[in-house]
């Protein structure tokens, strides 16, 4: 399960570019900062957790259900 903290996310999108399976996509969903929060596709996620390691703001969490 991928969760993204809207409070911490600054919308750099590095998680989207790093994702090898396209489980994350740039979306039109805007948070209170006015930046785009990535769109999550749970089925495509292979749990490599590269997005967690690259996130500069500790905003993304990938956990097994």
């Amino acid at each position, binding site marked *: 399960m991928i969760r993204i903290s809207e409070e911490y996310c*600054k919308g750099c999108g590095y998680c989207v570019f790093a994702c090898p399976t396209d489980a994350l996509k740039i979306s039109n969903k805007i948070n209170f900062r006015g930046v785009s929060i990535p769109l999550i596709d749970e089925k495509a996620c292979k749990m490599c957790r590269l997005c*967690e*390691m690259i996130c500069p703001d500790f905003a*993304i969490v990938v956990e097994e259900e």
Partner: protein
Amino acid sequence: MISNKELHDKYIKKAMMPSILCAGCGNGTVLNATLRAIDVLDMDLDNMVFVSGIGCSSRLNAYINADALHATHGRALAFATGIKAGNPKLDVVVFTGDGDCAGIGGNHFIHAIRRNIGLTVIAINNYTYGMTGGQMSPTTPQKSISTTSPYGAIDHPFDLAELAKAAGAPYVARWTIAHPLQLQRAIKKGLKNNGFSFIEVLSPCPTSFWRRNKVRNFETIYNWYKENTVTIKKAKEHPDKIPIGELKNIDKDEWTDLWKSLVSEVRI
């Protein structure tokens, strides 16, 4: 593997978050990799000191729930040397930037390496003086635009990892923020190495460096770090790209150990 939430709860000062760093800044990734390396090695934060100089990179130790020292510009390594010499049992980690380490603190840098004192130095190279508004730094690549080189830089840049290697550091590695797992492993090896370990991280500064060089898309920035770097095994085939990887890993006598043996030798 520890999740970001557990990492955040265990090591980060909650009152300081979210960080002041700009969107797209790579410093947070370096902090993330450092904390993951510390967690894998199961190191005690109470036995660690984080030292930094001045600059955006030097903000990082303020976010860690451990003792930190924010020193004067360029003098992070001098202060860290003092801490390590005063209490060799401490694990001292230095966060420094290209301006701090190679610019104003260049002499402290080569002499800390020459002594081979047991510090782990993480130098975040973003090719610019980011905090003061994007002036040209000693590592700014030729032809790139900054506020003090509006027609393109003509100076030859420093290669920090090669400089550390030539000065005699026992552990030298270079990675980018686009390689977070490898960076984490390099920091882990650096922390385990007894002597001076130097890890250079190529990290983007979208606000001060890339914006002036007319790159305003985070994807282009991220891909630049993937496309313009090559692992040291293939470096000979691509001489125009930046070699990344573990450049040096040897054993060398550490300064505080030598000091201890000297004291036991001469004490009456």
